[in-house]
């Protein structure tokens, strides 16, 4: 029952609530699932040196990123007892309040869901060649820096 088909992680623009709902709904036919853990990254309107972030423009080294996402996926299936998992990451412009990352892990029991979702999210942040350009109200920008937990 492990679903491991290769799919494209990078999607153009924000990830919508309707898309997330559709993904959740599709799992209602998989009645061996007991737990889902979903991580969503949302663009914050951080204040940086007195200017407010209104959007992040994401760019990626797409071919390498898809390979990394695939490797992260394979490693998660090898390590945890997953029924299925999906990752979606935005490219292009995502406004403050919109969602740029969607990690969706479904398992029989909740422990695997929690462990795997967190590890996958950390690996995406650490390993995926994706860059965020934080755009301010006045159209100037700064390149996003990842701290731990950011």
């Amino acid at each position, binding site marked *: 029952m492990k679903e491991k088909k290769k799919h494209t992680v990078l999607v153009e623009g924000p990830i919508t609530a309707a898309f997330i709902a559709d993904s959740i709904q599709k799992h209602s036919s998989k009645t061996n699932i007991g737990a889902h853990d979903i991580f969503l*990254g949302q663009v914050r309107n951080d204040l940086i040196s007195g200017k407010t972030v209104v959007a992040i423009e994401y760019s*990626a*080294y797409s071919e*390498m990123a898809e*390979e990394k996402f695939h490797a992260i996926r394979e490693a998660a299936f090898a390590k945890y007892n997953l029924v299925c998992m999906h990752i979606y990451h935005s490219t292009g412009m995502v406004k403050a309040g919109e969602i740029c990352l969607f990690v969706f892990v479904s398992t029989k029991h909740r422990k695997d869901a929690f462990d795997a979702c967190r590890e996958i999210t950390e690996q995406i942040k650490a390993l995926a060649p994706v860059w965020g350009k934080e755009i301010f109200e006045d159209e100037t920008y700064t390149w996003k820096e*990842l701290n731990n937990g950011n």
Partner: protein
Amino acid sequence: MEINLLVFGQLSDITKCSEMKIAHVNDTQQLIIKLTTQFPELALSKYSVAVNRKVVFENTMLTDKDTVALLPPFSGG
């Protein structure tokens, strides 16, 4: 002998170009020296080098049509 260079994130602010062809470089070290001569600010930047989508940690031989990428610290998610 010509390689394809990809430049990402804040590094493309330095090179003003995200994709270029570079001839006459036999390994990554020669490439970096050549780029740093052309774009001195690169010397002050933190980045990794990927050859054909794999990050390399030591000087690596290049062959015709290889793709080399300069990757500043990732900031996805």
